[in-house]
């Protein structure tokens, strides 16, 4: 399993039957591959779909059926289509139970920064700001560090924010971390790592509960 697959597989376990979820680009789009068959979810896409199904098989693509990342997708029974205003009414109105997003930086106070690197990258805002601010629960799925090995999980974000205090859970290839009022709380550790390693790669203090930390 690649580190991305590992994150997607762990993220899938955060989903409960009956939920409405939105999957950002990158790792989040892989989450459906790891969802147990008995878990029934409605996947929403910003471009006006509720009820995206399993990955599209080659040759089955429909020219009019893409997700917000321009991937060809399938539908589940009960799916529906709507315009972009209604799609964001669903998001801002609080009908999305979990939004899974990737990130550039995430902070111990739940701040998220994932849309702009001033002077380097500013392709636009897309749906991320509204999802981050208004989904009932925001789960960040990300590599634990940058390509250069620098922490992405920080005391405070250095980049312009997408939304303030919005992140509830961070899932990386090394750990599952909850954002609490006390700070970052380690919930699970990956099988092949240890607490000291994770602490050294995290740019903010990491709290632990009593007893042994569950592994994933």
């Amino acid at each position, binding site marked *: 399993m690649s580190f991305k697959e590992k994150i997607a597989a762990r993220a899938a376990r955060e989903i409960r039957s009956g939920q409405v979820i939105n999957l950002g680009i990158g790792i989040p789009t892989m989450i459906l591959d790891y969802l147990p068959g008995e878990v029934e979810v409605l996947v929403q*896409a*910003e*471009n*006006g*779909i509720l009820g995206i199904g399993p*990955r*599209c098989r*080659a040759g089955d*693509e*429909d*020219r*009019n*059926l*893409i*997700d*917000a990342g*321009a*991937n*060809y997708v399938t539908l589940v029974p009960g799916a529906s*289509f*709507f*315009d*972009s*205003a209604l*799609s*964001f*009414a669903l*998001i*801002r109105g609080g009908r999305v139970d979990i939004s899974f997003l990737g990130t550039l930086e995430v902070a111990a106070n739940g701040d998220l920064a994932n849309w*702009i690197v001033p002077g380097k990258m*500013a*392709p*636009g*805002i*897309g*749906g*991320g*700001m*509204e999802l981050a*601010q*208004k989904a009932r629960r925001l789960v960040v799925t990300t590599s634990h560090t940058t390509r250069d090995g620098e922490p992405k999980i920080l005391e405070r974000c250095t980049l*312009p*924010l*997408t*939304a*303030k205090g919005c992140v509830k859970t961070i899932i990386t290839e090394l750990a599952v971390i909850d954002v609490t009022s006390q700070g970052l709380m380690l919930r699970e550790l990956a099988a092949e790592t240890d607490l000291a390693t994770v602490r050294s790669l995290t740019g903010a203090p990491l709290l632990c509960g009593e007893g042994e930390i569950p592994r994933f």
Partner: protein
Amino acid sequence: MIDKTTASAAAIGQVRDGQTVMVGGFGAPGTPFLLLERLLEQGTTGLTLVKNDANEPGSGISRLLEAGRATRLIASHIGLNPTAVALMNRREIEVELHPQGILAEKIRAGGAGLLGFLTDIGVDTILRRSREVLNLDGREAILERALRADVALIHAAQADRSGNLVFAKSARNFCPLMAMAADTVIVEVEEVVATGRIDPDAVHLPGAFVDHLVLLEKLTPDYGVLPHHVL
């Protein structure tokens, strides 16, 4: 009987230099590629374009941007078009970016005859620097102005001659909103049927919002499954 069908040249001939043009589509689905091609051939310039994205290099509104026909683009995310990003970075076009649902709502408000609306989206971000922040019952809110255009160019799957429209799957996106928010609405359509043939319950956009229908004779590769997006 009302019949809004017309030739593409006659319809697009109404677009003038310097006008604001809304263009439907989220990526390829819903993008009126034929109407955009006619607009390019016609040489209209100095345009302000409003679209969710900038299509991809060599396709859709990117061809107008590449030919220098637009001075301004109002969009949400142009990351799938490195050519448009480069034009923006070189300041050859002015780009105004909005959160996607806020862009949709600005257009919806324009179409609904409203002047604007208040939102807390982006209130804790750098967006507030370029926006008006008001106090609403003790909470900060951004004032978003409604958006209208001179012309909307959209794509639909089916129309009857009176202009009632049906969109296909994810090709609906911004199309009905833009059709509500423009003074002149030109729709390219894959099939035109006799008025009365579309079940009133199945109409996605009433014909009252549509001025001209252009029948697509054939679907060019731009409309098809794009090989580079197949996994």
